[in-house]
């Protein structure tokens, strides 16, 4: 059943958000700390566990894969509602601070990634969400 996959995704999402809120509360903040990341870790763990017990059929998986596939269109919709007007009105301070931090971080990303010693594995070898 497709809904099993989507429900699994929804449960992981909700649990992750709740954990993130608790973590934020525990650290004395009003914001969510890593809720989505925690949800992702839960989903990875659930998939691993269900696979091992042979409880995940292809139809159920498609209930998750659809949402993974709709991801780019969602990002496009997200771009459509950015406050671009205000961003452009921010003036030279905002522009300089933003550009400066992107450039500095970019240099560090490049530096760290160049130091990667493992032979870069082509991602095509990674099997698709269908799993092992």
């Amino acid at each position, binding site marked *: 059943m497709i809904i099993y996959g989507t429900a699994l*995704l929804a449960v992981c*999402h909700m649990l992750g*958000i709740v954990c*993130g809120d608790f*973590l*934020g509360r525990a*650290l004395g*903040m009003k*914001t969510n*700390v890593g809720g*989505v*990341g925690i*949800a*992702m*870790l839960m*989903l*990875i763990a659930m*998939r691993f566990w269900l696979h091992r017990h042979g409880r995940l059929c292809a139809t159920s*998986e498609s209930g*998750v*894969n659809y949402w*993974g596939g709709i*991801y*780019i*269109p*969602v*990002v*496009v*919709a*997200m*771009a*459509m*509602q*950015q406050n*671009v*007007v*205000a961003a452009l*009105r*921010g*003036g030279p*301070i*905002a522009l*300089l*601070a*933003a550009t*400066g*931090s*992107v450039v500095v*971080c*970019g240099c*560090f*990303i*490049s530096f*760290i*990634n160049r130091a990667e010693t*493992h032979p*870069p594995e082509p*991602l095509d070898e*990674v099997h698709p*969400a269908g799993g092992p």
Partner: protein
Amino acid sequence: MEIFEKAARENGLVAAFAVVGLVVMVSGFLSRQLTSGRVQGSAIAILIGLALAYVGGKISGGTKGLADIALFSGIGVMGGNMLRDFAIVATAFEVHPQEARRAGWIGLLALLLGTVLPFIVGVAVASLFGYTDAVSLTTIGAGAVTYIVGPVTGTALGASSDVVALSIATGVIKAIIVMVATPAAAKFLRLKTPRSAMVFGGLAGTVSGVSAGLAATDRKLVPYGALVATFHTGIGCLLVPSLFFLTVKAIVGK
């Protein structure tokens, strides 16, 4: 026309699927015809999206781009936090646990650097433009981390509203630069492996910038970058109004 408008308004999310589908289709066409596939379709789609957001913001005078126009209100649901996070979590289904584990520590290091470095740059620029008080300096520096850390910090420290607005603008511009520049800079950044995507997710910050930037570069890298980037705002909100503010205050003395 009236009937058409009413239908779009009452079926917002469905209309949004159609609009976004159309934009993605046009982008794919432009990518093949104008750049013979060299610039990814999704990169062009995001650019068109940002351009439409500008037009929408100009027409409506609101803060949510195209979503503030009644006809396109469904865009607000489709691209809002709920569906965005739902789709991001779904991409975790493609993650390989071994790959993610191998990059664990470097991801954490990237996250810390991704908070400290933009903050320093933000504070430096703010002081260059004449800000001298610790509250304003910290708030603008926080905006350079992400556009959520900016207002959270500003509110916590009691910064003036124009400084808060400035910090939000800084964060939004940063996210937009990351969205647009990542595909072009992918070679320089060595964005090829899951590990490199996790380093990117930690250092480039903001879920929106990272997820869109990676989507336009290589769809397979998205979950790895997003996994780290989702902790970015949390760490920023934790460190900036506390440790970083006290450090800035100790340096400038007021």
